[in-house]
């Protein structure tokens, strides 16, 4: 993969390990897309640093990722609030989506 040309708006990236029991299931997916939508930047998610990249604001696409616990989520954001977006999204994953972990497979 060729490196993209550097520009003043080069994307901000970040990553976080999924440690909540159910991984990126329905409820965490909703929270992730809801949070992503609060930023104006274009935000993508992937389960591999090489992609494929998925629109973090699309609840249907994010729910289809079905990443299990132990997966690393990679984020990439471009736009005025890209840095804030990456910080917030990484924080959400590291907070385990504020889910009470248990046998709940929601």
């Amino acid at each position, binding site marked *: 993969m060729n490196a993209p040309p550097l520009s003043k708006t080069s994307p901000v990236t970040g990553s976080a390990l999924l440690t909540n029991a159910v991984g990126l299931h329905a*409820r965490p997916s909703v929270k992730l897309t809801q949070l992503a939508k609060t930023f104006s930047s274009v935000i993508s998610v992937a389960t591999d640093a090489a992609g494929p990249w998925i629109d973090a604001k*699309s609840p*249907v696409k994010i729910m289809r990722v079905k990443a299990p616990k132990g997966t690393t989520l990679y984020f990439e954001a471009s736009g005025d609030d890209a840095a804030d977006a990456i910080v917030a999204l990484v924080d959400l994953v590291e907070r385990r989506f504020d889910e009470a972990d248990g046998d709940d497979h929601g």
Partner: protein
Amino acid sequence: MANVGIVIVSHSEKVAEGAADMVRQMVGDAVPLAFTGGNSEGGLGTDVGRIMEAIDRAWSDAGVAVLVDLGGAETNTEMAIEMIDETKQQRIVICNAPIVEGAVIAATEASGGSPLDIVKQTAEELSPQ
């Protein structure tokens, strides 16, 4: 601008209520939400008057997206929309999506402030193309 409202119309009141519970728990309170299920005698079915009331309860100036289950629910929802004030009619859409998943996805999209056509489009991404 207010968020798009979501209305759930099932033949069964329990299904409608359960789907609404899922929306509330998963998406939160940022979207107006109403549900209706069952006919006026408390049996399985849908009722035009009740659908109109549900649309009214979930009304938002940004519009309302309706999720329906089986055929009669769609027919009666179309009927209800036609009987609602004409200025509101073009701001009410029926999403061609499975009722439970569609309601959650539509509400998720709506909670981010997306306009009605995007809410409908996102819910319909769930259906096989």
